[in-house]
């Protein structure tokens, strides 16, 4: 029982920390900077999720923007329905409670629909070996975007704003993004450091050997893919309520490429690496926004340089923890002294 008590305490501490940071950022940062910090969090969710399938399991998805879109539209639609249904009883609540009710439902639904989409895409394509998943997910990402682009219900190319002049309610704050980022990182880290993680890595390295030791490879791959899609759905739903509308153009191939850059920079297969990669992409995108049209060129160059200099990414498959940083620092100091 003390196990759950300790965890409750940790959870409370995490919530307090997220809230504290949220207040701190609100108080000391300009709105623009807060937005960048929020994108760091969203990217961390996306990267950690994508890394589970691309890095740990070794099945390459290049259409995760599609799952993000499904989560964004699904979440926004749910929240709009909820707002109309609850009406004044929702708006009567304090702001925080409104966010809690509306955004949590949106995120949960977004994650669920993205997971279902992941299941439907994953079951046929993950049965096959090789690069089929890459091709299928690439197609899926584009199909989803074009579907929303042509859908009357979801506002077509101008985007979905719930049919209101003021658009969607902007519930998403740093607090919620940070909280969901912690949840996603915890879930993925627990999966990776368990029997499931070993099984997924075995599939990545040698599928025949994995089968021979009794691993249901297709089922495990689909599981990893569904969790990964759900994470993208969570990020999508949070992203939707950051602005007044969800636009199909937000989910172009560029975004899938961004996600891949995040995990390759951070190190395929490393949870903490993915978080760092996510932050890296959020920050560089803002720093170089004036040269935004060269972004794909710049990322391509970056990947080429990275493949030459450090093919395993920043962290490789290792994880960053404070003890490791301490060891590295000491080794560096003693190495420098000699």
């Amino acid at each position: 029982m003390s196990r759950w008590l300790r965890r409750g305490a940790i959870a409370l501490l995490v919530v307090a920390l997220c809230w504290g940071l949220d207040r701190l950022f609100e108080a000391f940062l300009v709105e623009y900077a807060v937005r960048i910090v929020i994108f760091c969090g969203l990217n961390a969710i996306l990267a950690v999720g994508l890394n589970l399938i691309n890095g740990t399991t070794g099945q390459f998805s290049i259409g995760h923007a599609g799952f993000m879109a499904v989560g964004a539209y699904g979440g926004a639609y749910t929240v709009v329905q909820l707002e109309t249904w609850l009406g004044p009883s929702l708006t009567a609540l304090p702001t925080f409670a409104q966010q809690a009710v509306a955004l949590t439902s949106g995120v949960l639904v977004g994650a669920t629909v993205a997971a279902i989409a992941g299941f439907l895409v994953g079951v046929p394509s993950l049965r096959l070996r090789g690069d089929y998943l890459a091709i299928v997910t690439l197609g899926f990402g584009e199909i989803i975007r074009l579907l929303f682009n042509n859908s009357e219900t979801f506002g077509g190319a101008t985007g979905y704003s719930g049919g209101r002049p003021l658009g969607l309610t902007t519930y998403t704050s740093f607090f919620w993004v940070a909280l969901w980022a912690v949840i996603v990182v915890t879930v993925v880290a627990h999966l990776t450091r368990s029997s499931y993680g070993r099984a997924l890595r075995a599939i990545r390295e040698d599928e025949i050997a994995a089968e021979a030791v009794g691993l249901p490879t297709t089922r495990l791959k689909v599981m990893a893919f569904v969790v990964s899609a759900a994470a993208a759905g969570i990020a999508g739903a949070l992203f939707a309520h950051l602005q007044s509308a969800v636009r199909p153009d937000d989910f172009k191939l560029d975004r899938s490429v961004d996600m891949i850059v995040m995990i390759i920079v951070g190190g395929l297969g490393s949870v903490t690496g993915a978080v760092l990669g996510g932050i890296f992409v959020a920050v560089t995108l803002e720093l170089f926004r004036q040269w935004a049209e060269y972004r794909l060129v710049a990322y391509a160059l970056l990947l080429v340089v990275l493949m030459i200099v450090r093919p395993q990414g920043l962290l490789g498959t290792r994880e960053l923890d404070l003890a490791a940083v301490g060891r590295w620092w000491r080794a560096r100091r003693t190495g420098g002294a000699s």
Partner: protein
Amino acid sequence: MSGGRPLLELREVHKVFGGLRAISGVSLRIEAGQIFGLIGPNGAGKTTLFNVITGIYRPDGGEVLFDGRPIGGLPPARIALMGIARTFQNIRLIGEMTVRENVMVAGHHRRGVGLLGTVLRTRRWSDGERALRRKADELLEVLGLSALADEQARNLPYGSQRRVEIARALMLEPRLVLLDEPAAGLNSKEADVLKEQIRWLRDTFRLTVVLVEHNMHVVMGVCEHVHCVDHGETIASGTPDEVRNHPAVLAAYLGEPSVAGSGAGS
């Protein structure tokens, strides 16, 4: 032949790749507790037979019965969990993982906890992980690999990697173990040790062992029954002495003018 139901039985198994008849009509019976040798010249179809038994290939005809149940065409993971474990000719360890993890991964089906329990890290999760770790450490201990448990598998010398593969196979708690050329790359002294190890494995874990092997010294020294195939067909089956002196076997190996009329000497 002894009576009763054999542990593994192949009845008229066929496997065709395009126009190549890799296996045509092979039948064999492997009794529980036996050490069974499968021999034949290169390309005779021995590894193909292994792949049919373990489900990597689906047989194009005939029946594969394990303990009386048909398993031909089942997915490899199902067959592995039913109790047939194997090692590979070209060792297939997960090089990126430690020796202990390589063994533990074969116990995934006994983790005792689902996805939700894993994510929540329930007590059952930690109990399951601990049990897997203990079991893996026990196997590494009996195979003399304890000192290497935390090494990356790819850093191990060849002989140790073979033993890790055996430990991993045993983690499945199999009844039948298929060893694909365990003596490959061993010198004659090491091959002698291997013979002892195979007998010891069979007795300690109450296994049935099937051996694909080119090293005749090992095959004749340890197997109780030897089955020889060539061009996908059975050419001899019996005790080591019977098979060793069988004219068709001599013809297949030495390329003498064909005695069996199979055209092997052309």
